[in-house]
């Protein structure tokens, strides 16, 4: 398994601010993701998830520690070399899709490897194949504004695969999608990992993402925490840590909440929300 490690973070720390204003967004984090594996990183807001993802994607410099991508240590590389690493070894999927509005679906995907107006036929063929693979063969000439949220995210996934990277980093990939589209995207990410042999690292609040993951990690206060017990907030839908969450017992069953407002809503109509289960 060790030889298949696509992404490795060793004792990574990221500190924002100085003195009294110092915040440890990541605190000595160790992490590995291998080819063919989907790893989901969850945690409360402010836990350091996005910091983790941007450091793993070489967009942000760690204060200390090592980041190895496809076997290459990146912490000593300059900005241009890091850009090359991102372009060759990493694919990004964003919550808000981040497609270029004036480019068609095909151009958005093809852009990663062909930035000129006249793209090589090989780039166009690969982009077309990817879009067809994700059921967007009929949408190649559509602009992002003409696509649904699910279609946009599938274009973004195709774009992330255009350069055939070892690692896919996804930030809240279902955040802007309804339940059905979210499920489709998650299955797609699983498929990419298993069938194409990519290491897929997903950062998310959405507990449903765990269904497609080979591993789930809980990031809190800048550190991964093992053996954590989580529950689903029956009102607000967020995954919460049982140990620290707000609690309410109804008909001998404990329910856990992300915030006081969520608990108040539950108290107003417990029968309605209890039926959805607390996990």
């Amino acid at each position: 398994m060790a030889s298949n490690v696509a992404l490795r973070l060793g004792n990574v720390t990221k500190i924002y601010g100085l003195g009294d204003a110092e915040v440890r967004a990541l605190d000595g984090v160790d992490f590995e993701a291998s080819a063919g594996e989907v790893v989901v990183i969850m945690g409360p807001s402010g836990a350091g998830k996005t910091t983790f993802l941007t450091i793993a994607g070489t967009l942000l410099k760690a204060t200390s520690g090592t980041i190895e991508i496809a076997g290459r240590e990146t912490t000593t590389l300059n900005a241009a070399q890091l850009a090359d690493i991102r372009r060759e070894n990493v694919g990004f999927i964003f919550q808000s899709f981040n497609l270029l509005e004036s480019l068609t679906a095909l151009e958005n995907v093809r852009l990663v490897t062909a930035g000129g107006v006249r793209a090589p036929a090989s780039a166009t063929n690969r982009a077309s194949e990817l879009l067809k693979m994700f059921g967007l063969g009929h949408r190649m000439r559509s602009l992002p504004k003409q696509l649904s949220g699910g279609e946009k995210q599938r274009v973004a996934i195709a774009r992330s695969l255009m350069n055939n990277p070892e690692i896919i980093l996804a930030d809240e990939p279902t955040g802007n999608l309804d339940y059905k589209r979210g499920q489709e995207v998650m299955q797609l990410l699983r498929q990419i990992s298993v069938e194409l042999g990519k290491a897929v690292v997903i950062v998310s609040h959405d507990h449903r993402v765990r269904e497609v993951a080979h591993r789930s990690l809980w990031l809190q206060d800048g550190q991964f925490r093992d053996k954590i017990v989580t529950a689903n907030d029956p009102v607000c839908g967020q995954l919460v840590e049982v140990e620290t969450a707000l609690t309410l017992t109804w008909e001998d069953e404990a329910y856990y909440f992300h915030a006081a407002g969520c608990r108040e809503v539950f108290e107003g109509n417990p029968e309605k929300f209890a039926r959805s289960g607390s996990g």
Partner: protein
Amino acid sequence: MLIVARKNLFSERTRLVISVGGIALSVLLITFLLALFRGWNEKIGGFVDDVDADIWIAREGTTDFIVAASILPLEGADERFGQIDSIARWSPLIAIPMGATGNGSEMDIHLIGFDPVSEMGGPVRVTEGESIPGPGEVIIDEALSRRYGMDIGDTLNAAGTDWEVVGKSSGGDFVASQAVFVTIEQAQEALLLEGLATFLLVEMHDPDRAQGYARTIEHNVPGLVGFTSEDFAAATRDRILGDVIPILTVILILAFIVGLAVSGLTIYTATVEKAREYGILKAVGFKNSYLYRAVFEQSIVTGLLGFGTGAGLTILAGSFIQDLVPQFVTLIRWQDILGVAGITLIMSVLAAYVPVRRIAAIDPVAVFKA
């Protein structure tokens, strides 16, 4: 061209039109001013250039052809010039600026009396009618004819005399006034300048010695000045354009600034609007050099489109405006068009400078924010 540059440029048609329009107006203004300068330069000094003389001799204090208050006695001149072997021929010339009337209009003219035998200082190119006017006859410049509707057979009143127009010529348009040619005897009689002239025109056997001979006249004959034809033409141009050039320069600079501001602002606005997209490109692995190139390409293509439109409008409008406003004498040279293309290129590069700095500061991490 980069696809990002092309798409960003052409996806916002209104902005593109504003940007291209701004540069086009700037180019139009710059090209027009240059063409106007060239046109005036050509017209104002052109007559002196075209006169078949190597040296112009005038009364001391005379600086140029347009504002000349020179009176020279002709008595004995023939004898003196005849003794100098290096002189091929000489001729007296009268040129007096004055007001005239004709066809119910008042006009500013230069009444020019020339020797009909040597024809030195006479009509440069006769385009219609007689080439030598007889007693009571004049040859007028085409520009005067166009401007005031004067034609052959009409009567022009100047210096208290009615003259019949018997011919037209070109090359005597000084923009603010135009040449009207009569014989020197007629001019002397009408102006009460018997035995006098304003200039003596000298043609040398060896034109290369003109400069030296002009200096010799100044040193040896008190009260006279001598100019080579080139120097006199340059001084004549400077008389009119010397005051105009600083004004034209200021307007040229303003036109450049306007073009730069319009293109700079539109490119900057387009860059700021697309800042997130540039951040996305950075995030997925595009280097700053790619993004800079995208901005420069947008700016340069906008500049080229603006230049093409502006230069085209200049050529189209040039002749049209000249018909409406005769004083709007323009001369469009390809060297000037090339120069304006260079100015537009500089404008485009400068316009992209601030947006490029903005791009350099974009943090790709920001694209992770929803």
